[in-house]
C-alpha cells in the first residue's frame, strides 16, 4: 500500500518525507477559502494556477491530483466573487462539489481551464471530481473536461453512498483513480456529523463499503482512501483491498510519525477552517 499526501493550500517547497508517493488530493476549495475569493476572481485564478504549478513541479514525476472545488453553499456565500448566493438550510445535503459545478457551468469551465492549461506543462497533474452521485454526473464533467483540452488522467470520488453502484460505469468512462472520501461517506452512511457522538470511520459498515468497492474494482484501477484519517483506519485499509491512503499534511505527524519540525504548515488547515467559520458567523450576524 502506498501513502499519498493531501494538501489544502499548504505552500510546501519540498516533499515532506520519502514515504509519500505523490499528492493524492489537493482540495481546490481550500485554495479559495485561504484567499477568501471564489474562482470567478482573476486573482484567485492566478493563485490556483501558481499553487498547482509549484506543487506539480515539486513532486514531478510523481502524480499530483487536483480535486475540483467542493464547497457547501454557505462557504461560497462568504467569498469575494461568489456568483450565486444560495441559501440551503441543510447545506451538507445540498449543492456541493460537481452538483454546484454542473449547475453553474461557466465557473466550472474557468476552473477546468486553469488545470487543463497547466496539464500541457505538467504531465503529472491530474484531476478528480468530488460529490458525484452517478455515472451521469461524471459523464457531464468529462464532456466539459474534454472541451477544455485536458489530456492527463482523471478520477472520481466515492463519498455519496449511491456512487458505489456506478463503479463499473466509472471504469468504463476511463477513470484512472477512484478515491473514497471517508469524511462525508461516514456522515451519510451513519447519519452522524463529523465530531458528533457515534461518528466512527472504523464502523463495520464503513469497512464493508470499502471492501465492496475494492472487490468491484478488482485492481483494474487504484483505489484510494482520503479524509482526516486516524491510525486505526489507515492500519486496516490494506487488508480491505485499498491501494493508496491519502494522509492530509496536518495528520502526517500523528499518523505517519513524520517529525513535527519538518511540517511548518501544520496549522494551515485549522486556520482556514477558523477563518471560514468566522466569516459565516459574521454573515449570519449581518456584519458582512
Amino acid at each position, binding site marked *: 500500500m502506498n501513502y499519498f499526501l493531501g494538501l489544502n493550500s499548504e505552500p510546501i517547497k519540498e516533499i515532506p518525507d520519502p514515504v509519500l508517493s505523490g499528492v493524492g488530493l489537493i482540495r481546490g476549495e481550500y485554495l479559495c477559502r485561504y484567499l477568501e475569493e471564489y474562482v470567478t476572481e482573476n486573482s484567485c485564478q492566478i493563485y490556483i494556477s501558481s499553487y498547482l504549478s509549484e506543487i506539480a513541479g515539486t513532486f514531478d514525476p510523481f502524480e499530483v491530483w487536483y480535486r475540483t472545488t467542493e464547497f457547501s453553499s454557505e462557504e461560497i456565500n462568504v467569498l469575494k466573487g461568489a456568483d450565486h448566493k444560495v441559501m440551503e438550510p441543510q447545506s451538507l*445535503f445540498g449543492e456541493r462539489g460537481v452538483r454546484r459545478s454542473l449547475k453553474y457551468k461557466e465557473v466550472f469551465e474557468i476552473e477546468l481551464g486553469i488545470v487543463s492549461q497547466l496539464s500541457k506543462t505538467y504531465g503529472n497533474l491530474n484531476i478528480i471530481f468530488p460529490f458525484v*452521485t452517478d455515472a451521469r454526473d461524471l459523464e457531464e464533467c468529462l464532456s466539459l473536461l474534454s472541451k477544455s483540452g485536458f489530456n492527463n488522467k482523471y478520477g472520481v470520488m466515492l463519498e455519496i*453512498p449511491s456512487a458505489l453502484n*456506478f463503479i*463499473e460505469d466509472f471504469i468504463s468512462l476511463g477513470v484512472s483513480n477512484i478515491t473514497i472520501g471517508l469524511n462525508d461517506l461516514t456522515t451519510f452512511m451513519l*447519519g452522524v456529523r463529523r465530531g458528533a457522538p*457515534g461518528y466512527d470511520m472504523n464502523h463495520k459498515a464503513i469497512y464493508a463499503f470499502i471492501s465492496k468497492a475494492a472487490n468491484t474494482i478488482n485492481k483494474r484501477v487504484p483505489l484510494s482512501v482520503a479524509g482526516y484519517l486516524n491510525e486505526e483506519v489507515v492500519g486496516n485499509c490494506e487488508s480491505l483491498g485499498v491501494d493508496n491512503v491519502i494522509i492530509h499534511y496536518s495528520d502526517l505527524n500523528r499518523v505517519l510519525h513524520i517529525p513535527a519540525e519538518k511540517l511548518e504548515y501544520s496549522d494551515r488547515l485549522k486556520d482556514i477552517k477558523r477563518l471560514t467559520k468566522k466569516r459565516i458567523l459574521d454573515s449570519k450576524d449581518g456584519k458582512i
Partner: protein
Amino acid sequence: MANVLRGIKSFDMQGDNGSFYNDIGLIYGEGLVKELNQFITIDDCRQKIKEYIIELCKRASPNVIWYKTIDIMGYELKGMEGVENEKIEEEYYLIDNRGVSRGLANQSTFNLELKMLSEVSEVCSNLNVLFPFVRDTYQLEKCILMLQQNNFHGKFGIAIDLLATVFSLEDFLSMGIQNITIDIDHFTTFTLGADKSSSYYNTTHPSIVAFIEYISQIKNKAAVELNIAGDICGLLITKTEHINIDNYIMDHIPPIDIPYERGEPVELFSGA
C-alpha cells in the same frame, strides 16, 4: 403480490370503516406527539397514545400492528410541552439525533415510550415495535434490553434509514428482528446525499433500487417481512415489483406521482 398499507401519523379514526383498520402498516410515534404538541414525557400524552394504539390494535385484530418509536428532529420539538431534557438546537437537524440515537441518549425518556408500549402489549398481543435509525448492533442490543426489562410481549424490527443498517443486516437478522421496513424518504436522502428539496432527490434512482434489491437478497435468508414505507410513488412500485416486497406502507393512497426535477437518470446501473 405486495399489499398496500397505510402509514398512520395522526389520531385518525374512521368510524366503522372496517377496511381502514385492516390496512394499517405502521404507526409513526412522532406523528402522534406532534399532533398533541406534547412530548412522550407528559403523562397525558402517553395515556392518549396508549388508548389510541389499544383501539387500533383491537379493531385491526387479528392483523398485527407495528408502532415505530419516535424519530423527531430538534426543530420539531420547539414549543412542544415536556421537552426540557431534549436537544433542540441543531445545526444539521437531519443528522445526529435521529431515531434511537435520540432515545438512547436520553434513556429515561425513551423508557417511558417503551414502558407504554409494553403495557399495551399486555392487552394487545398483536402490537409489535419498530426501531428507526439503528446504526449498529450495539444500539439494537440496548433497545432489545430495554424492551425485555419492560416485559414487552410483541415482536421487534428495524427501519432502514441508513446504508450502515443495510451493511449490518445479517447481524440484525441474527438478533431476532422480524420486520425490515425501508423508510424510502430517509434512505433516499442519506444514500444520495440530497434532502427532499434537492433536484438530486429521487426515490426511484437506480442506486436506490439496487440497494433495495440487495436488502431483499439478504432478507431472503430469513423468514422476516420486508416493507417499503414513506412517500411512495407509482414509479417506485413499478421499479421494485420484481423484488420480494411484502408491503408498501404509504403516506398517500393512492400513490402520488412525484415529478423528479433532474429527470430519470440514464440506466447505467451496474449492480452493488
